[in-house]
């Protein structure tokens, strides 16, 4: 069953119909409360599973991004430094030729 596609309107319809069918009394109230708490408990449990999976995935992504940082940095620094050195050399050569 795809829990993401559960239609909440159908669940509410079922609960309201159940109340009507039981036709009043303490049994009706008890059944209604049990149904509501049952749905709430299921909802809580399902969200707990989703939260745990998301939290684990967030942690995995964070660790991966943080571990990648030094490599990205070293690559950028090496290339940027080389470019800056070459430009300084070109400027230096140009100034020497101008003298």
């Amino acid at each position, binding site marked *: 069953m795809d829990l993401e596609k559960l239609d*909440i309107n159908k669940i*509410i319809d079922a*609960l*309201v119909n159940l*109340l009507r069918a039981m036709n009043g009394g303490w049994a009706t109230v008890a059944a209604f409360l049990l149904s*509501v708490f049952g749905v709430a408990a299921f*909802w809580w449990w399902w*969200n707990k599973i*989703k*939260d745990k*999976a*998301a*939290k684990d*995935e*967030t942690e995995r*992504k*964070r660790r991966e*991004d*943080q571990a990648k*940082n*030094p490599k*990205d*940095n*070293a690559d*950028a*620094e090496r*290339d*940027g*430094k*080389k*470019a*800056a050195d*070459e*430009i300084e050399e*070109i*400027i230096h050569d*140009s*100034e020497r030729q101008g003298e």
Partner: protein
Amino acid sequence: MRYLLVAFLWLTACAGNLKPDPVPGAIDSGYPTAEILACGKRTVGLAICTIAQGDPLETLGIRVQGYYKGVVKIDSEACSIHTAQRYDNSSTVKAPISGPATKECAIDFVVSPEYPKDTSSGLVIQSLKGRVWIRVIPPGSSHFGLNTKIRQGLNAFLDIPYSDTTPTRVVFRGCGASYDKTLTPANGKLRVALHDLRNMFRVEDCIFEGAVMGRTPIRVTWQVWSYSEKFLPLSIPTTRISGGKLYVKAEAAVSVIALDRDYSITNETEFDFDPSRSHVLRLATVGGRIMIGEWNGSWTWKN
């Protein structure tokens, strides 16, 4: 009874929660969004600082903005920084650099926010990336720098302010570029096309270093990040100021709206607002898309 039930269930499920972001995450799309304060400016994702050789690095005042609470990882091989610092209360984290400037370095940040409802949203919270490029120049020399974030495959232009009118030699190196052309200034500027330096069809970042070889050379840095065409930067929110309040309505994917240090987990909210003072408004999605508004009598938006 029916409507009461619907209202109860809806409020339980939706009120004040983080929301999914339908757009691919910023960090995976090659779009840096960490909020950087460097050399007296606030930028999103990228910054360039120039410093004269021998001047103290701490004068650059490089910091990164934290969101709610979390961890900031800071790395720079050349500036010898490899650290992870925790922050809270939406504070900024200072890059630990000091001593005289001797060589270029790139300071990379990864900001990993931990929002108050991280654990009750069932959503993956993505980190934010940023980079500050420090260019060391000889004392007394002039420099021009620009950061560009460009959708991959598209062209971008670098306009270098230049008052002379005679054709001038312009050179560029970096990221495989070997550019050496004589350009004629027009309307007080020299224009360089990204595609003449390098075609960027993949997601990647490049630091181009160059020089305008006039009578007095001008050093130029162009930091370009080419991001995935699937990525969409966050749009500017609707704002209204009325009766000492600021009303903000952002697009549906926005999960966090903050004015200065006041946070709200929503995409539509209001804050107490004094228009005579300066403020910073921040919007964030769980995918790391960011929009920043600086208030100084009117809004200046950055993303």
